[in-house]
């Protein structure tokens, strides 16, 4: 059974612009379901979904779980700690054992880049990548696209700058691929030590100064600065990072046009973003979270479907 998206959602890099647009368009009516008194439709009744999280996550896991429950799927959460994974079981064995219990989908977060694809090639269930290492986080990329489209109506020609730790960020990669496919212009801004070597080959512009990025962009996607990066020697100190690259109220105030602020969370207030900006009028950070549930419902719904070529026959 293959859907309009194929068997799995592993990343935005393999998707076409048309497939991305289909997901965004499908997410629109799902927004309304979360506003109903009874936030539930029976579309995935009878489907069993395992949320397999090898890395800690609150937002993404809860968002997937709400999306699954609002579509009436049955869900099970497996965290790496406290499961057979901590006893040394391999990823494939864990998944095959789950599959032997007749599941339909696996949503997986893993610290290794490529883990989702590795799994998808070895099990029959649909696999949704909920973040694999520093590779991709497709549903986050999609919800960012949806939030930008909500505001600007059109992604084509939009100028978006991704700021901060691009090197370690799967969100950055999904954003770059997704935005470029939809015709947006993408730039990155951050200390050279946190930008991947050869980033220009992605076809993105590089800003060394956040002031220049703000002057250019219509939207900033501010990435989380993982605090352990400091001890690893990528940046001298958090204070210095904030002074040079922080998205502060003073800097945003000097923007020549309206500047939308996105952040995938969790935020380090006072490091990569100031509280006044995060809570300010240009911030759509909480809209991103709301859209996340709708996007994940759309992906689950589209992947769960059987053979679209028979859709005609179902009319009536």
């Amino acid at each position, binding site marked *: 059974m293959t859907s309009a998206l194929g068997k799995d959602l592993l990343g935005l890099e393999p998707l076409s612009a048309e497939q991305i647009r*289909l997901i965004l368009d499908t997410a629109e009516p799902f927004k309304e379901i979360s506003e109903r008194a009874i936030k539930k439709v029976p579309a995935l009744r*009878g489907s069993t979904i395992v949320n397999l999280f090898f890395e800690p996550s609150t937002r993404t896991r809860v968002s997937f779980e709400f999306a699954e429950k609002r579509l009436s799927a049955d869900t099970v959460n497996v965290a790496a700690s406290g499961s057979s994974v901590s006893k040394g079981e391999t990823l494939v064995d864990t998944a095959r054992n789950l599959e032997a219990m007749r599941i339909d989908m696996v949503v997986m977060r893993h610290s290794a880049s490529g883990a989702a694809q590795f799994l998808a090639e070895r099990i029959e269930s649909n696999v949704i990548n909920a973040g694999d290492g520093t590779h991709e986080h497709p549903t986050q990329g999609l919800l960012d696209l949806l939030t930008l489209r909500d505001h600007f109506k059109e992604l084509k020609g939009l100028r978006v700058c991704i700021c901060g730790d691009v090197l370690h960020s799967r969100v950055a990669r999904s954003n770059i691929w997704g935005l470029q496919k939809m015709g947006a212009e993408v730039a990155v801004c951050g200390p050279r030590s946190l930008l991947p070597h050869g980033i220009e080959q992605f076809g993105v512009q590089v800003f060394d100064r956040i002031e220049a990025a703000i002057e250019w962009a219509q939207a900033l996607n501010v990435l989380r600065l993982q605090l352990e990066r400091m001890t690893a020697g990528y940046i001298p100190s958090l204070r210095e990072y904030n002074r040079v690259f922080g998205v502060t109220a003073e800097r945003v105030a000097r923007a020549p046009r309206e500047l939308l602020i996105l952040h995938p969370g969790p935020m380090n207030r006072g490091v990569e973003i100031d509280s006044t900006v995060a809570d300010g009028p240009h911030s759509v950070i909480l809209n991103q979270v709301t859209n996340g549930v709708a996007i994940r419902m759309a992906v689950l719904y589209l992947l769960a479907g059987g053979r679209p070529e*028979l859709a005609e026959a179902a009319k009536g």
Partner: protein
Amino acid sequence: MPQNSITLLDARAVDRTLKRMAGEIVEHNGGTHGLVLVGIQRRGVQLADRLSTLIGEREGETPPRGALDITLYRDDLQTIGPRPVVGKTELPLDIDGAQVVIIDDVLYTGRTVRAALDELADFGRPARIALAVLVDRGGRELPIHADIVGKRVDLPKDQRVDVLVHALDGKDAVILVTP
């Protein structure tokens, strides 16, 4: 294979039929009190708009309208697959205690209406739910019947009824298509 099309109702006949249905809806309900017209996406929504306006002209009171997209309540997702784009569901105010009339263009297997009843139940508890369709083409697979019918025809499986509405198709017509 070329398709054979026969016009069952032309624009004037559709207009006459809708006017009669508007009258029957009011009669069936014993007035316009508590009346809510809920159209099923997509052409049912256009028909509900028209019927509501017609009732308003006759009775001096325009009943509120709603739209229902039943895509997510269908029972064939696993076998048939998702519809390309799911439409919007918008219901007016509170439907608890209302006299709801579901409006659709064509009644065939009854599965769409079954899904619509399930979806309405998730929004509230109407005092009564009735069904009005422009065309009943027979072929039911569920014990469902329409209270108000514009035109009744009995068609074999291989034939199809297309309802055209001005807002979406540029003209009003009901067409019988034989592939």
